[in-house]
Structure formats: C-alpha cells, structure tokens
C-alpha cells in the first residue's frame, strides 16, 4: 500500500485560538493517523518563515479577539498573506473559523466604524453593527449544501461581526437553528474552491467528522494528483472509522435544539 503523508499548516496557534479551535487540529491529525497517514502539524507564527506556509497541504486558522487579530492582520500584509491567497486560489484545502473566516473576506468594518481591509479571497464582507448590537451567540444547526456532507453541521457560534456573501449560492449551508453569517439571510459560511469558512466553533470538526474527512480527502487528492471531480464527487477513498461516539454527541445536542 502506498504510504501517504500530510503537512497541516496551523496559522497563528498562539494568537488565533481563543475558542478551543485547536480541537480541529487534533481531530484532523488523529483521523489521518488512524488511517495510517503520516501527519506533520506545522505551527506558523508571526516570526515563522513564509516558506512554512508553502509546504503545507492543508491549512487551518481559528478565531481570536480584536487585539490578537490586529497583530495577525499586520503579519498578513506581508509575504505570508500573498502566499496564503495563492494557496487558496490554487486549491489547497483550508478551514478558516470565525476571525480567520472574516480575514479572508474583502473587509471588516469594526464596531467603531473602522474599515479594515481583508485578504479579499472570499467574496464576502463583514460588518460589526456596533457595541450595542447583540453578539450572535448560541448552538447552531446548519443544513450543508455540499455533496460530500450529508449530515447537518452542528456547532456553537459567538461573533459580533455579520458577514454577507456576494453570492449566496456559495454558502456552506443553510441555517436551521441559530444565526449563521449574519442572522438575517439564513446563510452560514462559505465554500470557495477547496477552502471552507465558517462561524462554527464547538470546535466544528469533532462533532462533524464528515467535514474533517472531506478536508483530509481533498488534501490527499491535491497532493497525490487525483483531483476532485464535481460530477463524480470525491475520488479519494478514506477508510471509514467508528464514529458512534461522534453520533451520540451529535444526537445529544440536536435533541436540545
């Protein structure tokens, strides 16, 4: 059997990890290793070389607070930002949560009406309606709109910014319970090439193993040259795992929603 390996690039673990998003890295690593895929998690910091980003097969970045985001924003104005854009455009799979999701959009208008430019990869923009507006907080249930994910996505959201997609058909899914992108148009997240942006913490991957496996599959396809074909669906076959505990955790929360 061919030996597969993946390098997961974890962007700014010391700055963009306020909401337990590290769990996503743990899940990606374990679910790959349980299938005999060798995984290296490369932590990418402000003082890391941009090269570390170049060699990543799968990208991840979590959510954070304003001060931390400012530091990251400054770093992404440099070469890392350019490489990140290029990688997403060329189809490197990625998962971008909350603050990271907002970053990849065109701009973020802060609560005090400052317009901060984003990387402009995702066709969306984010606005914070001000300190007085309620943060969007709570459990979320989303009906996914992508082929490889059959089960609803569940998670917990906690965000002040409201994101608006330029093309609503690009949404990751439709909100069944909770607020989603902006609490208004029932969209949640975005799918752009092989990258996913979403507001779902929880963290998202432990209770949505289908999404974790989809990310791994896409990363393997990209790396080992069996490209994803939208007509036929995903080609790369991952051995199924026993997800009965994941199912129970999902059912427990769905029952209460």
């Amino acid at each position, binding site marked *: 059997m061919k030996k597969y390996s993946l390098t997961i690039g974890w962007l700014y673990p010391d700055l963009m990890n306020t909401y337990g998003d590290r769990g996503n890295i743990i899940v990606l690593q374990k679910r790959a290793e349980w299938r005999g895929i060798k995984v290296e998690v490369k932590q990418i910091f402000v003082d890391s070389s941009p090269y570390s980003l170049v060699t990543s097969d799968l990208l991840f970045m979590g959510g954070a607070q304003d001060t931390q985001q400012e530091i990251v924003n400054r770093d992404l104005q440099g070469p890392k930002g350019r490489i990140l854009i290029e990688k997403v455009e060329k189809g490197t799979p990625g998962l971008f949560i909350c603050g990271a999701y907002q970053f990849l959009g065109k701009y973020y208008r802060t609560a005090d009406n400052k317009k901060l430019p984003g990387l402009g990869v995702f066709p969306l923009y984010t606005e914070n309606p001000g300190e007085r507006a309620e943060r969007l907080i709570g459990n979320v249930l989303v009906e996914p709109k992508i082929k490889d994910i059959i089960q609803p996505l569940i998670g*917990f959201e906690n965000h002040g910014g409201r994101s608006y997609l330029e093309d609503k058909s690009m949404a990751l899914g439709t909100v069944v319970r909770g607020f989603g992108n902006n609490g208004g148009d029932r969209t949640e997240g975005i799918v752009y090439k092989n990258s996913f942006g979403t507001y779902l913490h929880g963290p998202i991957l432990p209770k949505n193993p289908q999404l974790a496996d989809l990310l791994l599959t896409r990363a393997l396809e990209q790396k080992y040259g069996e490209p994803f074909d939208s007509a036929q669906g995903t080609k790369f076959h991952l051995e199924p795992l026993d997800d009965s505990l994941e199912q129970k955790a999902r059912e*427990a929360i769905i029952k209460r929603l």
Partner: protein
Amino acid sequence: MLNSFLILFGKLVLFASRTLNFGSGSTWPGHIAMETNANFVRDVLKKNPELKIVLIAGTNGKTTTSLMLMKILEQSGLKVFRNEAGANLLNGIASSIIKKSNLTGRLNFDIAIFEVDENNLGEAIKQLIVHSSQLSVVLLNLFRDQLDRYGEVNTVAAKWEDALKKLKDNTLVFTNGDDPKLSYIAQKSELEAYYFGIDHKSSVISNKLGYDVDFTYCPQCQTKLKYEKVSYSHLGKFVCPKCGFTNPETETFPSLLHPLIGKYNIYNQNAAALVAQKAFDISEKVIRTALVDFKPAFGRQEVIKYKGRDVLILLSKNPAGFNQSIDAVRTLDKKGNILFALNDRIPDGRDVSWIWDVDFEVIAELRGKVFISGDRVYDMALRLKYGGFDLVYTQIHAELKDAIEAAMEETEKGETLFVLPTYSAMLEVRKILTGKKIL
C-alpha cells in the same frame, strides 16, 4: 428608613430560607434590596466609615483567597465578614451586608472582604467609591472563561483598567506580577500597587507555553514576549525583546507552608499574605500560623468522605483552571480513580469548546479508571477519545449519581476518587455526597 426596612425584610427572608432548608447561600434579600434601592450597598457602607474593605476579582481563586485572607485577619484578632462563595454579584454583596448588619445598618466589623465577579468589578467600585475608609483591590488573575457569558478577556481587561481609573488615590492595588497584562494595568494606574508572585526556584516549572494562554504578547508594544519561566497559563517570568517590558518585583513568601496543592494556590496564598502584610500590617509569622491548618472552601480541593472513601473535589471550570486541576492530580500521585463532570448550564457557560484547550493528553496513561458524566458527557467522551484515552476503560454515565456510585464501586478502601467538575456539576456532586442542597 427604607434601608432599615430592607435589612429587616432581608433578615426575615434569610431566616425563613434557613429554617425551610433552602440552603444558606440565598442572594434573594440582596437582590430585593438592590432592586428597591440601587445604591443600597453604598448607603449602608457610608454609615460605616471605619470599615475597611478588600475587593477580590479574578477568574480563578477568588473564594480560596478570600477565605485565606479572612483566616489571617481573624488570627490577628480582627473582626471580618465576607460575601458567600460564588455569590459575587452586587446582590451577593448586599445579602452579606443584610446578614451581618444590625437594623440601623451598623456593621460591627473591622474588615469586609468581597469577592466580585470579573464583569462586576466596575459596578462594585461604583458602590464603594464614596466610602471613606481604606479600600484594597486585588486582581488575582484573568483567563478566558465562559466566553458566551463574560465575553473576551481583552474586554474584561479593558473594563478593569477603566475601573481602576475611578478609584481614589489612597486605594491599594494588589495584583499578580507574573501576569503580563495585569501587572501592566497596575503599573499604569498610578495607584499604590503591590505584586505577588511565586518562588520560581522551588517549584517544577517549564519554559513552554501551553494552549490555555491569553496574554503572551507585550501589552505595551504587541511583540511576542520571551518567557524564561512559565508557572502556568501565561503566568511566569517574561521580557519583551523589543521594548524591554518585564515583571515588576514580586513578593513570594518563601517561608510559608502550602496547605493546598497546586501552583495556583501558592499564588492565591501569596495574594492573601501580601494584602494582610501591606494593607493590615500583619507579620509573616502570624500569616504562617493562620494558614497551617487551612481548610479549603467547598468544592475547591475539598475532601468529602463517602462510603468510607475519600472524594477529592477540584472545581475545574475553564482551560487554565482545569489544567491546574489535572496537574494537582498528577502531583498528588495517589492511588484512585477520576471522574470528569461537564455541564453546560448558565453558571458553566453554554459553550463547551474550551475543553479542547485542556491537556487531557497528559493523563491518558493514568493508572486509575476514568468515569465521565454531565449534560455534555459525549462531548467529554470525544475529547478523551481524541486525547488518546482508551475508551474501553472509560465509563460513560449521563446521570451524575450513577457515575458517582459506579466510581465508588471501583474505588478500593484507602484509594481516592478525584472529581473534576464544572461549577453546576460541583454543586450537584456535593449534594449527592453530603445529602444537603447547597452549602
């Protein structure tokens, strides 16, 4: 007149709730008093200009620190009262005043110790600002905790910074000199500030930061801090490579014994000792004597005997606190089993994401059996599964009572059951073990 009526009425409510066994922790009288007169606390304290006040805020350790300080002060013959553990909103403070004052609002005490919820420090200070006697404010620590309820730690830190600006200039500020953000806030405040720390030579300390940290960048110039020592979370000996910002000089009280386990409790103890020393002029010798036989507050390293076994409860409600509890269990290295209880009720926070920032991995190889329970038992199960635990040996019980009984059956005489619960689960565990409703 109105306040006297509120005190009388409150006392009656307290009496009734005790008699009817609703538990003694009722914040109802205070709630009613504050609803009727929003300045109830301020008005009553104004009538007691001699009463000295200590306010204690922080994410973890408020109750333990309050209790330690109270013991030290009482040891030196002072009359002290405090609000009850966990009743740390204004209504809890008001309730303690109702309970301890006479009908005219007179408090026959030397010192009041109030622990305050991190989001209510500003409100509490507003009530105390006209008070003429000495005020000490203790900022113990600040970690992320129940983000859905408290908000992000930067927001809380900004509120604290703001709150300090409103204090009179004779106020004493005590804070953790190993915390970059808090020591920065205190240094900037122009108030008389004192810093506690721990002796980094004596304890086993790494130089690696974990994932439960919140402030690891320079509060002055936002450069990543270099840590020479990490005691836990973002606490340690740090220096900013760019602007040179570093720890202030800290007091570490190396002569004191440590009645409780864990580095977090050394910080709590040194905070209490520093307040006693600087605000009340109490000698280290008295402090040492006062704490020799210190008994922990409920649920905080409290040992309860149940069916002939020791049950050790370590309240674990956020990543930094949970990691410290795990560290304490490892340090004790006692034979026994472990029970994790994860709830997601209002006092716990509805969001359980934070368990993924706790390093369960370090106890995956624990010799004892693992039991898990609580409203979000399957979220905990997943965390352990991905943390390298062999779930074949883990018992999952949705009902806490079943979990405790099953764990007791597996715990031999002379062994210990370690219980690591979130806040509401801790109350539930105590109720099961003691048969009493609240305290």
